[in-house]
């Protein structure tokens, strides 16, 4: 039951911009880690680009499950986890993080931001705390009513991930 990455992005008109990300690739073999991390960055962006505003979804990509939440104001979050990690908790985490992020970082900085310019430092500790879902969230229940959550099965064609 693992979380691999937690990212905050902004869904622009044509592209998604990465604002901040945290990774935990320690469970991968040493020499794979940098390429795995690159893959996760790329996948998170791609998923946000292909998701509608105001939606939540869980997308299966290879052996990972990517949980994405795109808010109506285009602020988006992606959690990449394994298939054991409960999706309820992943969405709770995303809700929480985006809420906090929107209070700490000015809206005006979102469309033009990048990890080096954005000042939000809580992602690493969230990622680490939520590795054990029960320690992080003793109730482990999503409070808010969810929009329809779809599980999208992605078939990997050739080398790039084709989602839908």
């Amino acid at each position, binding site marked *: *039951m693992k979380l691999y990455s937690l990212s905050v992005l902004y869904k622009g008109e044509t592209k998604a911009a990465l604002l901040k990300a945290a990774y935990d690739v320690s469970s991968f*073999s*040493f*020499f794979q880690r940098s390429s795995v991390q690159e893959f996760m960055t790329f996948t998170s962006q791609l998923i946000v680009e292909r998701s509608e505003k105001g939606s939540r979804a869980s997308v299966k990509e290879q052996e990972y499950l990517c949980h994405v939440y795109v808010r109506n104001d285009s602020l988006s979050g992606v959690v990449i986890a394994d*298939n*054991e990690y*409960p999706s309820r908790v992943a969405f709770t985490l995303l809700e929480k993080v985006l809420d906090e992020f929107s209070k700490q970082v000015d809206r005006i900085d979102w469309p033009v931001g990048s990890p080096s310019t954005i000042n939000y430092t809580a992602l690493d500790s969230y990622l680490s705390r939520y590795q054990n879902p*029960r320690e992080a969230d003793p109730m482990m229940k999503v409070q808010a009513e969810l929009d329809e959550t779809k599980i999208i099965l992605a078939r990997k064609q050739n080398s790039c991930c084709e989602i839908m």
Partner: protein
Amino acid sequence: MAESTEEVAVLVQRVVKDINNAFKRNPHIDEIGLIPCPEARYNRSPIVLVENKLGVESWCVKFLLPYVHNKLLLYRQRKQRLNKDELIDVTCTLLLLNPDFTTAWNVRKELILSGTLNPIKDLHLGKLALTKFPKSPETWIHRRWVLQQLIQENSLPTFVKKESLATFPMERVQRLVQEEIEVCGEAAGRYPSNYNAWSHRIWVLQHLAKLDMKILLDELSSTKHWASMHVSDHSGFHYRQFLLKSLISQTVTDSAVLEQNPLVSEHISDLPKDDDEDTSAEHHRVVDLSHLLEEEVEFSTDLIDNYPGHETLWCHRRHVFYLQHHLNSKLPHCLMRLSPMDSSGGTLNDLHLSPAVTQMTQAMDVDGLNDSNEQGYSQETKRLKRTPAQDSLGIEMEHRFIEQILSTCRNVEQARFANAYRKWLVTLSQ
């Protein structure tokens, strides 16, 4: 671009030497890996050593592997001589690239038997290979061979200190057991439901630790957190089922001895042995089995509630409930002297759950509980069983549990598993 035979030979010699030197330079290497690198850059060695991790650049593998593979085969066919050091280096290189190459392990077996190679080195090499190939069957098989060599009394005079004619020193065995458990744990973490790693762990408990009760109990508690963080790892939960079954069988074996001791009271858990018992090394612990099983059911409930939709958890629940059910409903048939569960067939066979009750009885035989060896009623067996009324209460509680799940869950899979479990319970009470 084609490499000439001489160029390849030179390259390979260099790489094999680099690997050897890397181990000499850093005896704490704890992981190996392949570095995706399609082309050689400059004139650099493809062997990379970073922070105790040994990497091989992928471009060289297509030259390296066929060459050393061929070299070893030629040696085997007596067409080429290799001295002991060359053999050690070549097999080491080969096994780090492909640990399922049985011939290489067998060459090392010969080196060990002739006293040229320290068997501990093979444990270390195997551990490294498992960091990249955590399932590798041949690595686990060879590992068991080495361990068997190490614990045998008269083998390997060069490397095993012959203490006396006594059996292998207990602390050394304990250390081996702990080390093996660690290796299994790591391999289990590197690959989901790593059957080979968990089977090896079972083998270690049976053949090195001799199903010592304290170790069984320790393992039960120390794997609990891991299991809760790997709720789809069927092999991990099967291990817990093995531990519980072994505790049951060991308790029954001990109960015959404890029968004679009237000081043993009804509900005790984990007492140290009395002074007036025999002074053998064997610890006769009285384990409250029903309590352990109840705890395991609670554990299962907790996980099923919090992590909906994992078939492994429901399978585990069946096994545990069946053990509880079997413990009390089939007496006096079910608590009996057990033959040692040492056959490899016995460990690796899962409890075959099928609807027919008669088939279930046979399934228990497969696991080593032999119906034909009955023990008479003893104080212990009475203490361990629940009354028939409590048993049907147990089934009723399970049905209520299923109802509760079905009425609150939103997960389609969870509902499916709950329904299947309900059907299974019905067949159980027939």
